[in-house]
């Protein structure tokens, strides 16, 4: 029988309409010692307003360098059940689809070896099994892996890639987010399980500019589906929207960021050359508008949380890339990017920070992508920039040529 703690503060959080995490902990605490002590410890934190966990030690499974976050309580005398309370990250399937059978298998394993507590899901995307002891790790891993599951990433490694629901259930997916996510995860198994990089490297894949996995804000490598070609307009459906009270002028035409749309009362016109594919019109008139035909993705690099010189959003590196099986081009690109980072990065330096410190040119040259205006919001403002001797030679040669032809090439 697990220990029962008096939890007046946490009990408050059982009230109210939103599902209660306290109820969840209590469910487990009723039958599991670790969960019971987790509950007691948490109540103590609520009372004292401070946490009782220590810096994680290095724990894991044989041959892997990641996938488990070691966690020890700082007052194990008082809460022996959570003296060890490691979490196990399980690599989720693409877009978090499950069968109930699969979930039950995981629950059974976890009840056997762990606290019974989970996170569905962690904010990188993994299934998180919350709380077990060092001794149990090998068994848990054997049970999981023998049933087709593998650990997710942690430490200075590739982290578990994730993706939006995409073509599985979304009409706007320009790319097969699920398959790409699966393939990249498989491609980088070694990098995922054996931390060997300066710091973490995350991949997130969204099927369109709505970015339903927050790729551009939370992944070192953000892959976002897009298209070339004209937005497809079903004028009848447009008129239907209007007939049903949709204020097309106010809600679409006036909100289009590039001012490239117009509505004459019966026909919607889009100046596609000026559309920046923001998805506003398409998302607000889903029956009437569809993305153009040539599908692909934009690859952006660098986003991360603020520690320590400020949060980054990812930067456009490859404005357009085809996304087709077997995705060799994308795999190669990711490999080259991480190679460059690995060569240039200092410990605990994310790829975006290295690009900022070393310079975009070095990065682009290494990965073989030419400079393009799409990569910047605006060109540089201050009059300081570098030339290689070859740059200058090229310019001088061009000028000589211009002298001959009488035609300037700016």
């Amino acid at each position, binding site marked *: 029988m697990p220990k029962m703690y008096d939890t007046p503060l946490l009990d408050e*959080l059982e*009230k*109210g309409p*939103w599902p*209660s*995490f306290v109820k*969840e902990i209590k*469910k487990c605490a009723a039958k599991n010692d670790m969960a019971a002590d987790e509950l007691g410890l*948490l109540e103590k934190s*609520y009372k004292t307003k*401070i*946490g009782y966990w*220590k810096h*994680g030690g290095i724990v894991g*499974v044989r041959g892997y360098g990641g996938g488990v976050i070691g966690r020890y309580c700082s007052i194990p005398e008082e809460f022996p059940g959570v003296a060890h*309370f490691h*979490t196990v990250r399980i690599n989720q399937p*693409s*877009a*978090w*689809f499950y069968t109930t059978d*699969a*979930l*039950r298998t*995981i629950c059974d394993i976890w009840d056997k070896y762990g606290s019974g*507590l989970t*996170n569905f*899901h962690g904010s990188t995307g993994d299934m998180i099994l919350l*709380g077990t002891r060092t001794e149990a790790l090998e068994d848990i*891993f*054997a049970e999981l*892996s*023998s049933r087709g599951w*593998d650990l997710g990433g942690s430490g200075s490694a590739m982290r578990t890639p994730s993706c939006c*629901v995409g*073509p*599985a*259930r979304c*009409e706007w997916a320009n790319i*097969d987010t699920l398959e790409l996510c*699966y393939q990249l995860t*498989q491609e980088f198994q070694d990098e995922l399980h054996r931390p060997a990089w300066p710091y973490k490297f995350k991949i997130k894949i969204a099927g369109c500019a709505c*970015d*339903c*996995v927050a790729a*551009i*804000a*939370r992944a070192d490598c953000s892959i*976002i589906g897009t298209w070339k070609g004209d937005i497809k307009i079903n004028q009848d459906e447009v008129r239907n929207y209007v007939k049903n009270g949709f204020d097309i002028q*106010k809600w679409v035409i006036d*909100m289009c*960021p590039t001012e490239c749309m117009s509505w004459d009362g019966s026909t919607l016109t889009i100046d596609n050359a000026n559309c920046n594919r*923001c998805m*506003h019109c398409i998302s607000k008139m889903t*029956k009437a508008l569809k993305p153009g035909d040539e599908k692909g993705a934009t690859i952006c690099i660098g986003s991360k*949380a*603020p*520690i320590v010189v*400020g*949060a980054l959003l990812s930067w456009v590196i490859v404005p357009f890339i085809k996304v087709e099986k077997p995705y060799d081009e994308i795999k190669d690109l990711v490999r080259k990017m991480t190679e460059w980072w690995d060569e240039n990065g200092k410990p605990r330096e994310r790829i975006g920070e290295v690009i900022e410190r070393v310079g975009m040119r070095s990065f682009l040259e290494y990965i073989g992508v030419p400079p393009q205006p799409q990569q910047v919001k605006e060109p540089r403002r201050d009059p300081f920039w570098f030339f290689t001797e070859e740059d200058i030679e090229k310019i001088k040669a061009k000028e000589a040529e211009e002298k001959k032809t009488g035609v300037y090439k700016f």
Partner: protein
Amino acid sequence: MSVPQRRTDIGPPHYEQFLPPIIKKNYGNWSYYQQLAPGVMVHVAESGDKIYSVRVGSPRLLATDTIREICSIADKYCDGYLRFTSRNNIEFLVTDESKLNPLQDELKSKGYAIGGIGYRVSNPVHTQGWVHCHSACTDASGLVKSIMDELFPYFCEKELPNKVRLAVACCVNMCGAVHCSDIAVVAVHTKVPQVDAEAFKNMCELPTTIASCPTGAISPDPATKSVKIKAEKCMYCGNCFTVCPAIPIKDAERDGVAIVVGGKVGNLRSNPKFSKMVIPYISNEPPRWPKAIAAIKLILETYAKDARKFERVGEWIERIGWERFFQLTGIEFTYQHIDDFTFARETFRTAATFKW
């Protein structure tokens, strides 16, 4: 029971085995979607096939027994298929329209919260907090529960001008999505960490520790063979504590939370945006953080009242101007709001145009 043979580097199972047949059939060929209720939508394929999704709020921290309960519901109404969203909600995937209402009835009867689709508040992205992380200056789960209890009508019923994405991070590492959220809470330290010189010698490296400080506040202290911190240079980021456990920064009375607003990640209309700080400090008040929750509600409702349809929080504020935001919400503008770190230069106003 003997433990089975381990396998390595197999990666996750292929998702295809988890897709409902109707999804496999119409994969990549969806035509449009329609919201039927705050927590129910239908996706219609080019083929005319339909799949219904019923979304249910989740505390994210789930007991295995709860997962089993969810599974039995999914078995009953969804042929055993379900998914989770990128914001940790549960989606029941219904092929048979006739099961839609019974499913909802059962969910309601069991106390599940149906909602979160469309222009509403969805599940806050959040993190470990006191539940599991050594770095936490607050508890994320408790904050989320308190916020969502208060904003519940905006999850399962009331419409807003657009989606409002909430997040909670329990320290400035920001494992949540706080840095680009419509409204979010980030927990902060506010006190200079204390160096435990004895422990330092055993646990920490001098150069790494000094290098960890973004403001150069840390210097060697030859007297104690450890380091000292220049108090007026420290902005409590905790990075020194991350690399060196002998520099504890947690403080029960001084740790607290800040409120940030106006971020977004989608590209619709305007570029993805960072959140900006609007309330620099509110004391931790477990179990319900009433002041933080009141602040969030105030901001949300000011937005609901003043924004134009389809404007996100950040878009609304940028249209009316931050000076008007502070006026409308009555939030005090302090020295802390003025950047004095990396982006100072970008945030100072360089125009004679503003509102009174």
